[in-house]
């Protein structure tokens, strides 16, 4: 009952004209960013963070704007998957498999609207999951001391690589690199400068927003410059959208699929390190095994469109659970959202629910509102977004680059930060080439200081005894999960990831 009272308070916060307008703006921008290949949810949220700050928005309105972008991008990714057979963002990869064949059969409109409904169902159920699960997780997290938190952070890093990379050594490298970057600046506990090389600008530490925008947005510009992508314009024009509402029989046929995959996607989202890409992948393969009796998956089966879309949107909601309740994000975009919270001086984690209930519940209410807005934007108005797809990268990418510069310059007004951002852009490009995942780097820069503080606190409390780190049953459980999570992908993960790759390549070659 308490939950419903909280939720009602949340709606009271979210239902102001200002916040509704921000949610609508976020949904709209998010859908565009999701739809455009090369601008994913993490990029999209990253380049908008500075905007939210400079608009002078408070914590709740900023979060409403940016999580609407996040949900919107998850919706938008499917549009280019279906029409162009190019995933608009990574989680939309699996939607290509059946979405594009459906469009080729002249059912583009049906595929778009059906996937819109599936996205809605997934996101809607996941938001309920968030409401029910997050407070329970908070109760557990309140038992955590510094040693448990240190173990939890380690768990987050060790499990993150499982899905985002085929090579665990590379994800460990990325995490260590991020943690190392976070060490730059004046040590908060003793006041000595570390790794600053006498550069005064570095005494405050690296601004993680600079790192995020550089690594995600600028490296994307470099990738486009390198490959000079052919434009996808020609294809989209050939496909006619057709009717914008799926027949009732199609909805009936896909309803059980949507419900099953929403649950599956949500679970995948909550698990650390998994995120939306895994959610859509698991959903698709599970449904394929379960209902694909006539081998119609991959040839334009509506269920093959509904499954990954419900799955990835449910996972997007699920990924918010650990981010809000524990302060440990499980995916790239939730890491970026964590950056937003940290920049607003809000510490996520169990105390967030007691200290800033207005932020949490306002955000959750906004998610519901955004979800309905997205359904409205994505079904009748999907034609608008398909036109956006016609913007070629040679016009889009300069704008992305310039907005990145503007955003960072707007926060600090310093040329030094811009140069650091360019440095991160180059580094991001090289690391992407080498198949090193970028998300652990971001997570490392975000969580590095908190992780170190917890370590030092735990050991100081126990008078310098390092064994205190594995002294309680909770820490032992967390460390065991962390170690299993790190080793298991070395054994199993390679197969799963290889299969994902194969499916993806198959989809693009078709």
């Amino acid at each position, binding site marked *: 009952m308490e939950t419903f009272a909280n939720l009602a308070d949340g709606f009271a916060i979210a239902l102001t004209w200002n916040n509704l307008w921000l949610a609508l703006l976020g949904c709209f921008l998010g859908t565009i960013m999701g739809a455009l290949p090369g601008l994913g949810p993490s990029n999209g949220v990253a380049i908008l963070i500075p905007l939210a700050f*400079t608009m002078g928005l408070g914590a709740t309105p900023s979060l409403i704007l940016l999580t609407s972008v996040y949900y919107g991008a998850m919706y938008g990714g499917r549009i280019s998957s279906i029409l162009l057979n190019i995933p608009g963002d990574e989680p939309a990869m699996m939607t290509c498999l059946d979405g594009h064949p459906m469009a080729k059969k002249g059912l583009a409109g049906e595929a778009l609207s059906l996937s819109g409904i599936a996205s809605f169902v997934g996101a809607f159920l996941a938001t309920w999951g968030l409401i029910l699960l997050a407070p329970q997780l908070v109760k557990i997290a309140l038992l955590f001391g510094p040693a448990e938190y240190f173990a939890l952070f380690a768990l987050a890093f060790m499990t993150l690589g499982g899905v985002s990379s085929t090579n665990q050594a590379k994800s460990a*490298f990325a995490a260590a690199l991020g943690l190392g970057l976070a060490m730059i600046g004046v040590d908060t506990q003793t006041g000595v400068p570390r790794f600053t090389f006498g550069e005064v600008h570095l005494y405050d530490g690296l601004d993680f927003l600079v790192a995020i925008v550089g690594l995600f947005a600028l490296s994307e510009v470099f990738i486009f410059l390198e490959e*000079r992508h052919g434009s996808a314009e020609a294809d989209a024009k050939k496909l006619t959208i057709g009717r914008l509402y799926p027949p009732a029989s199609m909805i009936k046929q896909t309803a059980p699929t949507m419900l099953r995959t929403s649950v599956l996607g949500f679970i995948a989202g909550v698990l650390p390190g998994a995120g939306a890409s895994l959610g859509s992948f698991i959903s698709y393969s599970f449904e394929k095994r379960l209902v694909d009796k006539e081998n119609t998956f991959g040839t334009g089966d509506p269920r093959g469109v509904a499954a990954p879309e419900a799955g990835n949107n449910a996972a997007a909601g699920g990924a918010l659970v650990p981010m809000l309740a524990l302060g440990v994000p499980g995916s790239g975009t939730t890491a970026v959202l964590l950056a937003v919270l940290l920049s607003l001086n809000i510490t996520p984690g169990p105390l967030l629910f007691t200290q800033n209930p207005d932020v949490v519940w306002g955000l959750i209410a906004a998610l519901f509102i955004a979800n309905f807005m997205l359904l409205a934007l994505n079904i009748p108005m999907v034609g608008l977004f398909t036109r956006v797809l016609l913007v070629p990268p040679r016009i889009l990418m300069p704008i992305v680059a310039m907005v990145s*510069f503007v955003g960072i310059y*707007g926060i600090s007004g310093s040329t030094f930060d811009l140069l650091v951002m*360019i440095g991160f852009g180059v580094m991001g490009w090289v690391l992407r080439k080498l198949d090193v995942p970028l998300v652990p780097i971001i997570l490392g820069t975000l969580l590095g200081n908190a992780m170190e503080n917890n*370590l*030092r606190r735990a050991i100081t409390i126990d008078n310098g005894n390092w064994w205190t780190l594995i002294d309680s049953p909770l820490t032992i459980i967390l460390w065991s999960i962390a170690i299993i999570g790190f080793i298991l992908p070395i054994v199993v993960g390679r197969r799963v990831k290889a299969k994902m790759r194969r499916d993806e390549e198959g989809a693009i070659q078709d």
Partner: protein
Amino acid sequence: MSDRIFGVVGLLLAIGFAVAALNIEESFLSDAVGPSGFPLIVAAVLGLSSIVIAIKPDAAPHWPSLGRLAELLAAVVMMVLYAELLPVAGFVIATAVAAAYLSWRLGSGILASVLTGVGSSVGIYVIFHLIFGLSLATGPLGF
């Protein structure tokens, strides 16, 4: 081969990081772990993972040809110039030039890239500065 070089570079980075961590001057305030404890753990993870990467390399990535690399380098130089000249030339002019350059290198014609540059520069100026009130670099001409 790429991964072997990468691993060696990573290892050097880890060693450098560890050396820098050991050289952190001690403060009169101190705790049980000290300011260099955690960085040393990080350096160890960095070093170990680099060694594994060097010993068990993945297949080499597809590196761009020299021409494309020069292209990327030119873009980086352009961006650095942009960052340095932004406070001098003012936002609108600097951004128009930079965006036009990028658009041209991504395959637009001369006219189209000039239009893209001017369009995105003025567009960003209007939306971010005039509407949202973001402070942008001001040049000699006042914009």
